[in-house]
């Protein structure tokens, strides 16, 4: 399908094409036929998995005595997730810029460009939820009733409202705190909204039953004045999700109106914000501001020198902290879920979470120090063996991980000192293993793209996540005192051996070929083997 060049639909189609290609990069470059096959297989698997979910949910959603509070919580979860996705997407649009300079330099009206970008953001917000929810809707429509398909328009309406909210927040922050701080603040807001609500919902579930009942009553009375009245403002999305036709129509129309209002009101501001964002670095510091003067230390050892440089770069990049914080926030709900379990002791609930966080944070920081290295040719042309540089960098990874884990380990120690000790040991092993994988198989990319780095190598992503899970199993077995503790360790050691055998980094005395810097996800790791 072709659209008239310069129209809204033409711009939107271009944006969606680029988004689709970015998504396609995640599964590697494939032919159309293979893509269709992968889509068909993936869709089938998702629908088969969704089938029992739909069967289980059906009586809980549609029976007259089903608890509406759960649906309200679900709707809020979906909506906040979409708002968070919109915030991240609008940050990328404003700050990573990509084609914005080209588009805004053209004779097209800024409002039309903004509308197309906003529609693209809404599509990605919809897509972030649709992949998992729409198979459930389809399965529910097949096994139960057609009302399940109400999820489609409900999600469209919610995505439009979430996008308008996300854009308003990001552009509002832009003018409120300035272009240099806005990026970090918007990412933080997204992290808090995205992870915070899920975490909050789990924390609420840990409250005493009496408080939960009060909260549930309040939610129900706020959203539904009575069981039949589903048309209160907050009850609309829930009723739409349940397939109420009028509510569906209202949600979609309301979504379109809010979205249109946002486009009309924010279009001009977006153009101004975009001009102001040009060249704004990804931190909150004012340009030209003098760094706090420290006495130069020309007398430190090579290791100290490397560690100091890595720590300075880490500390001075708040956007990295946001991304590391996001990883932790998204891991915490698991801990809260485990803590809720009445059968698990507190220590056994906390320890695996600490280990998983250690593995993930160490992997991320190792990626930053190795693959996110800003001057690889400087290090490669220095008279230092690559192995020496690696050792210095590996030691630089350890301190930030230790600092991040200190508090949860102290909490664990207050419950059980022994548990804290073995958790610290296993966490150190977990961190070291994922860091080593990153050292042996670097994936060069821009530091800003840390969270998107796994698009470069699905295998490395699988190994990292696998290590995190295996070390979590290890700590559980270790605390249970079973000999099976050794089995996940054996698997990790075996995989590490394979990683080391096949690693592409040069050994001591040889030189790695630095790759040019591109955003993570935009290139394959390329290191030559001298």
């Amino acid at each position, binding site marked *: 399908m072709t659209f008239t060049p310069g129209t809204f639909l033409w711009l939107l189609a271009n944006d969606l094409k680029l988004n689709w290609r970015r998504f396609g990069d995640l599964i590697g470059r494939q032919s159309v036929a293979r893509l269709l096959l992968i889509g068909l297989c993936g869709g089938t698997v998702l629908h088969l998995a969704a089938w029992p979910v739909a069967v289980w949910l059906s009586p809980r959603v549609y029976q007259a005595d089903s608890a509406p509070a759960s649906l309200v919580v679900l709707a809020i979860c979906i909506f906040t997730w979409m708002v968070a996705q919109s915030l991240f997407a609008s940050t990328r649009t404003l700050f990573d810029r990509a084609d914005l300079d080209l588009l805004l330099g053209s004779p097209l009206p800024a409002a039309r460009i903004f509308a197309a970008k906003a529609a693209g953001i809404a599509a990605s917000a919809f897509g972030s939820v649709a992949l998992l929810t729409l198979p459930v809707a389809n399965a529910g429509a097949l096994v139960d009733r057609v009302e399940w398909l109400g999820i489609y328009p409900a999600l469209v309406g919610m995505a439009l409202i979430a996008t308008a909210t996300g854009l308003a927040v990001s552009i509002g922050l832009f003018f409120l705190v300035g272009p240099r701080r806005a990026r970090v603040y918007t990412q933080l807001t997204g992290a808090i909204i995205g992870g915070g609500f899920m975490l909050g919902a789990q924390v609420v579930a840990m409250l005493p039953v009496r408080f939960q009942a009060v909260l549930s009553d309040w939610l129900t009375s706020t959203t539904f004045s009575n069981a039949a009245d589903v048309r209160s403002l907050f009850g609309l999305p829930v009723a739409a999700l349940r397939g109420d036709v009028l509510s569906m129509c209202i949600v979609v129309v309301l979504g379109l109106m809010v979205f249109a209002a946002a486009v009309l009101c924010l279009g001009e501001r977006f153009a101004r914000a975009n001009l102001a964002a040009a060249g704004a670095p990804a931190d909150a510091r004012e340009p030209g501001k003098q760094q706090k003067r420290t006495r130069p230390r020309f007398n430190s050892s090579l290791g100290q020198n490397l560690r100091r440089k890595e720590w300075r770069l880490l500390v001075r990049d708040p956007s990295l902290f946001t991304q590391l914080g996001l990883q932790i926030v998204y891991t915490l709900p698991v801990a809260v879920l485990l803590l809720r379990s009445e059968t698990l002791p507190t220590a056994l609930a906390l320890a695996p979470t600490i280990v998983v966080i250690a593995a993930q944070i160490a992997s991320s920081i190792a990626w930053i120090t190795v693959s996110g290295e*800003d001057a690889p040719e400087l290090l*490669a*042309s220095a008279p230092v063996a690559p192995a020496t540089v690696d050792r210095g960098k590996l030691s630089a990874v350890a301190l930030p991980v230790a600092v991040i884990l200190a508090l949860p380990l102290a909490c664990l120690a207050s419950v059980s000192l022994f548990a804290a000790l073995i958790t610290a040991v296993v966490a150190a092993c977990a961190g070291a293993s994922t860091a080593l994988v990153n050292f042996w198989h670097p994936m060069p990319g821009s530091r800003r793209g840390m969270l998107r780095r796994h698009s470069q190598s699905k295998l490395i992503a699988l190994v990292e996540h696998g290590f995190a899970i295996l070390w979590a199993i290890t700590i559980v077995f270790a605390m249970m005192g079973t000999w099976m503790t050794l089995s996940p360790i054996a698997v990790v050691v075996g995989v590490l051996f394979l990683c080391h055998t096949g690693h592409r980094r040069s050994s001591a005395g040889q*030189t790695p070929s630095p790759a040019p810097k591109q955003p993570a996800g935009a290139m394959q790791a390329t290191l030559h083997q001298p």
Partner: protein
Amino acid sequence: MSVASSVVSNPEIAASARHWPALSLTGVRKTFGEAVAVDHIDLTVQPGELYALLGTNGAGKTTTLRMIAGLLKPDGGQIRIFGIDALRDPIAAKRITAWLPDEPMLYDKLTPLEYLEFVAGLWGVEPVKAQRSADELIEVLELGPHRHTRCEGFSRGMKQKVALAGALIHDPRLIMLDEPLTGIDAGIARQVKELLTARVRAGAAIILTTHILEVAERLADRIGIVDRGRLAAEGTLDELRSTAGHDRSTLEDLFLSLTRRDALAS
């Protein structure tokens, strides 16, 4: 292995520097798959000489420099830097060389002084000497007012100056520069040229690539013209003129005539 010795304080290197050319390439070859990037290049650069490597885009200039800098391993041939076999002992060779690529190798979040501190640490420069060199380079390159400002807001020319200061802090005997004057203004270009000329006068050897033929014409003692991986011609400007048979030609005329003639011949 300790890196705490610079060329000046290392008597072994200083002794070898008296007897060997600064750089000697013999039959150096590099291919990327089917494509031949560098095809049996032989060249020699003497201490105290500035050698300009010219060529069209993709001719193999940068690949040649990257092999000398130890960033790429040649498929064949020999590279000697002040007598050191750079392929057998890359660490010793790197200790007396500096590599400045066309894109400055900087850390945006570090200040120029912190960057110099880091680079001096990498090359193991003696602390007192490193401090003195850093102060001198900051003064010569007029970086003083910005020494405590992070590099992230710097212009390209400023970044190039910081990177150049980093490349020179360990007093290298062989300096390799890839397009050092591209994208910088006339004032900064003059500072860079003066600094490089001073280094050559002090006995260092410089090999640089450039597309600005005037730079090669004015600065270089000898010029090599690379075409499709091969050294098509080499010598002083006068020698190149006589090779091309044009006594009063400009370097631009010679360059175009040599590269086009080769293209036609092939």
